[in-house]
């Protein structure tokens, strides 16, 4: 690759530390890999402390602690404390399960800057159904804790076919809980969500109604709360600029220490990604094959290679290209110029049909048992 196709690589500004794949919830839209049950050994405390120090030295400044459910790590406070001391802005992405008053106080003392609380829905029954546990009351208590400690609060609600019609209730709940930001993130179809796509992809009519209602709330509420509405990319004509570019700002470290340019890149065949146990963060970011492979545009095929918009979206998402077109270097099939765009159109067409019979192909919940079954079925 030459200098024309490979702009100089900036630092890994965003470090996402996926501390564990263990999770008390079993969300059917989870983006953790379907074979997460393969993960045997999580990085220990020392391992994570080293990742934090190396990433900060390489220029990382935003640090997200995620999972699975990061509250299941009893060293979370230690890790947050070190991240804070190093000068990171620290974000905790949690379902709220395990965030007791004691731990909230300890995290505050450790210097945690922000908590993003995820909700599956605002109606108790649907919430419990979708997350497969009884957690809704708890989340309301956790929201009160977050506000009580003076943290800014971002509420994240994954939106899909089964809850999108309750969008007004969801927004109202966020307002009542004092959220400063609300992310209404339509499910994107990776991992568990891809398995469950026919259950989760909303119809165009549902989507348009939800956007209309969201806009009405925005007008009414003004500056009180910032509401982000992320449309499922299946309904777009152009792909998203995934991760703001491969190996551009984003570095994920998975529970076992594998370093990835995005949460799901491990699925891509023929690419090897280094482990932080074997290689330093700076070398991983700048030197490793896995991180360099889709930088620049030398890897692109037609129609991306000669597309005037290639700088705008970098050809979309490599994982989606692999999942839907069978080739990670192909155009993201979401793009209307992709030769495989029909795959997306067919899924969208199916989503326009009225409610299907739920027993026909039941939702597959994200849990170790299903993960082990899927590993066995995949045959390797």
């Amino acid at each position, binding site marked *: 690759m030459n200098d024309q196709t490979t702009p100089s690589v900036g630092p890994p500004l965003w470090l996402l530390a996926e501390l564990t794949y263990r999770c008390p919830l079993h969300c059917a839209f989870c983006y953790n890999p379907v074979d997460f049950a393969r993960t045997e050994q999580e990085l220990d405390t020392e391992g994570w402390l080293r990742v934090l120090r190396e990433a900060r030295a390489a*220029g990382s*400044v*935003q640090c997200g602690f995620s999972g699975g459910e990061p509250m299941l790590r009893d060293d979370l406070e230690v890790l947050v404390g070190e991240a804070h001391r190093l000068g990171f802005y620290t974000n905790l992405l949690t379902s709220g399960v395990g965030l007791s008053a004691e731990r909230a106080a300890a995290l505050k003392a450790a210097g945690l800057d922000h908590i*993003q609380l995820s909700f599956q829905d605002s109606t108790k029954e649907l919430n419990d159904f979708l997350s497969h546990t009884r957690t809704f009351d708890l989340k309301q208590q956790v929201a009160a804790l977050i506000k009580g400690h003076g943290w800014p609060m*971002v509420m994240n609600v994954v939106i899909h076919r089964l809850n999108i019609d309750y969008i007004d209730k969801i927004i109202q709940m966020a307002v009542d809980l004092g959220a400063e*930001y609300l992310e209404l993130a339509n499910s994107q179809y990776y991992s568990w969500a891809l398995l469950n796509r026919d259950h989760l992809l909303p119809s165009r009519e549902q989507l348009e109604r939800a956007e209309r209602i969201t806009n009405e709330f925005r007008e009414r509420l003004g500056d009180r709360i910032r509401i982000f509405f992320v449309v499922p990319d299946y309904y777009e004509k152009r792909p998203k600029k995934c991760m703001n570019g491969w190996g551009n700002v984003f570095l994920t470290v998975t529970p076992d220490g594998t370093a990835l340019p995005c949460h799901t890149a491990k699925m891509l065949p023929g690419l090897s990604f280094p482990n932080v146990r074997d290689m330093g963060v700076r070398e991983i970011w700048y030197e490793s094959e896995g991180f360099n492979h889709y930088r620049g545009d030398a890897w692109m095929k037609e129609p991306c290679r000669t597309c005037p918009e290639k700088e705008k979206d970098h050809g979309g998402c490599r994982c989606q290209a692999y999942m839907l077109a069978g080739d990670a270097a192909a155009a993201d099939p979401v793009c209307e110029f992709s030769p495989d765009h029909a795959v997306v159109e067919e899924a969208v067409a199916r989503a326009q049909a009225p409610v299907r019979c739920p027993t026909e192909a039941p939702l597959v919940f994200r849990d170790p048992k299903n993960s082990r079954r899927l590993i066995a079925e995949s045959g390797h």
Partner: protein
Amino acid sequence: MSTHDAELLAARPRVAKLFRLQWEEAQQAWVLLYPEGMVKLNASAGEIMRRCDGERSVADIVTELEDAFVTSGLTEDVLAFVAMARTRGWLQ
């Protein structure tokens, strides 16, 4: 000068609660950090923001910058920046 400008010059802005301002060695820039996001400030914006501590007035900041950079006539630029930063919620 309008009344609005005069009021703004007397104001003592500080970085809003939701944001944290810090110098980033790797980027050689002042950045504003907030939940899951970052704004990289250019050199002049950084010089203004780092002085917004709730104690200095905007007029003080203008004087300081004119002294520090041996120049004059910065009032208009500083006012414009402070007004923009307030609109975006960076300053309170």
